């Protein structure tokens, strides 16, 4: 019995060690192995959100659709391979990329300096989001209209402080966004302040047909798509930079924005103009 157990233990240890070695080997890949692997496999595996309408969500048949899914489709088409989507969460998207479980991540991720050390976020950024408000149509027109008025917000959200210090709004803070939005519906405040991408998702959901997002978005934070860190300066990272450039130049992202009912973002317009300026007339 004892020797049997030892054998089992040895087997398990070997399997674990093997697993660790396999993981390490993955991380030590030379720069272009991932790109080559995608072509060999004939399939591109992209991590997208499945719970963030309208960027990545499920249609009623269970298929993942959305703006970022369309972008992933464009990439697969450009490579001439099939597309496989893996739903990711904010908590595991960077790990999946590091492990090599996904080749590319387009998952509503804000571009932050500390994230650039972990995954290969390619330039230029494909989108931005910032502070804005949701209000009944015609109630407020610009940020200064908020002065002295009650504005609903989520407790602890950093948007609250900004509208108070900059525009003198009176914040009515709630535990969660559902409660804050309910208060807006009940007329307890003139607007609900939050991230514009989240407000757009609400507008797209059809629950807020009498509402609008009237302000010019402030404090834009760029969104980044990412490839594995050691692929960033290789073919794969440069390929993604190129495809993003073309998305901006041709207005593809603006077109997708429209398709998914997302309000036009100033950033995409600016980028289109900037890149078009370099084109011969």
């Amino acid at each position: 019995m004892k020797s049997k157990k030892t054998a089992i233990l040895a087997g398990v240890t070997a399997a674990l060690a093997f697993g660790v070695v396999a993981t390490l080997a993955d991380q030590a890949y030379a720069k272009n192995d991932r790109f080559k692997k995608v072509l060999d496999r004939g399939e591109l595996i992209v991590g997208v959100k499945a719970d963030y309408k309208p960027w990545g969500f499920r249609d009623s048949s269970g298929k993942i659709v959305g703006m970022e899914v369309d972008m992933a489709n464009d990439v697969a088409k450009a490579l001439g391979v099939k597309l496989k989507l893996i739903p990711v969460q904010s908590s595991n998207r960077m790990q999946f990329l590091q492990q090599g479980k996904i080749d590319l991540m387009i998952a509503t991720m804000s571009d932050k300096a500390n994230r650039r050390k972990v995954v290969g976020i390619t330039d230029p950024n494909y989108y931005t989001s910032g502070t804005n408000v949701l209000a009944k149509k015609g109630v407020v027109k610009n940020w200064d209209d908020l002065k002295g008025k009650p504005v609903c917000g989520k407790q602890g959200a950093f948007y609250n402080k900004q509208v108070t210090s900059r525009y003198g709004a009176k914040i009515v803070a709630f535990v969660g966004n559902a409660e804050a939005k309910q208060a807006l519906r009940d007329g307890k405040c003139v607007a609900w302040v939050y991230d514009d991408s989240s407000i757009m998702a609400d507008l797209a959901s059809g629950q807020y047909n009498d509402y609008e997002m009237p302000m010019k978005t402030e404090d834009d934070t760029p969104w980044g798509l990412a490839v594995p860190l050691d692929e960033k300066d290789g073919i794969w990272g440069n390929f993604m930079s190129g495809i993003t450039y073309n998305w901006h130049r041709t207005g593809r992202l603006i077109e997708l924005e429209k398709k998914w009912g997302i309000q036009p973002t100033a950033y995409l317009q600016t980028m289109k103009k900037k890149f078009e300026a370099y084109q011969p007339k």
Partner: protein
Amino acid sequence: MDVLLPIARQQKAQAMTERLEGTFRLNLQPHHAIWMLLIFVFTVGAAQAQAPRELISPIDALVKWMPFILWGQEGTLNGFALNLMISFFAMLFGTIAGVTLGLMQISLLLPVRKGSWFVTQFFRNSPWLVLLFTIMLLFPFEIELGNMIIPVPDWMKAVIGFALPVMANISEVVRGAVRSLPTGQWESAESLAFSRRQTLWMIILPQCFKRMIPPWINWYCILAMATPLASIMGVEESVSYTAQAMNAEGDRPELLPVFYLFLLLIFFVYTYPIARWSIRLEKKFVVKT
């Protein structure tokens, strides 16, 4: 205080079984089912009344997403079906490993006995979520054997993560069942010149088998109800699918109770008959000592 005596006796008897098996018992009664249904009907009714008229009603939304929550996209076995699949395989592997470990716990060799005792206690007393996290993060997503690449899907890792605590608990069930037999059985076998192996296989274990069935089923029920833990690790089972379905409907607050109670209901509908069956078996197999 005479009136309390029957209850005290009942509690004591229950405590004794639970101590022997090292776990609590799912004691589902018919009235539990009635309560469940009442809560579901009332909550759905309230949510239905609350919902804005111009949007899809919570019940219609639930009906629309029901296939997705139950098995996912057509032709796939995700959602609730994946919960069941994880529970079957985790139980299978957990039982095989657990019976082996349990028999090692009654070995005459001290190192084997102590070692298996330690393994049992370690996995029995570790939080399930911690074991699940460890396994899911430790195992690679694919294993390369030369030119062959064997993918290890997330749900398979979850199976291993769940099989470990099940193994440890089944190990205790086996040990407890053997211990629960009167020592006279061993002594008479010895006086009839049975070897230890013969005693174990031909006299002790056949008697234990019956006693192990009810706690084994009980553990299966606990495991089946624990499988949604895997949703935290991004496994595409019913709880993550429910959250995604609600998001697709615009994350409306009135959908929350309806969708989550539906989940509770399908788990209940699955577990209830099994738990009742285990109670019946227990009554049937009760051994007079």
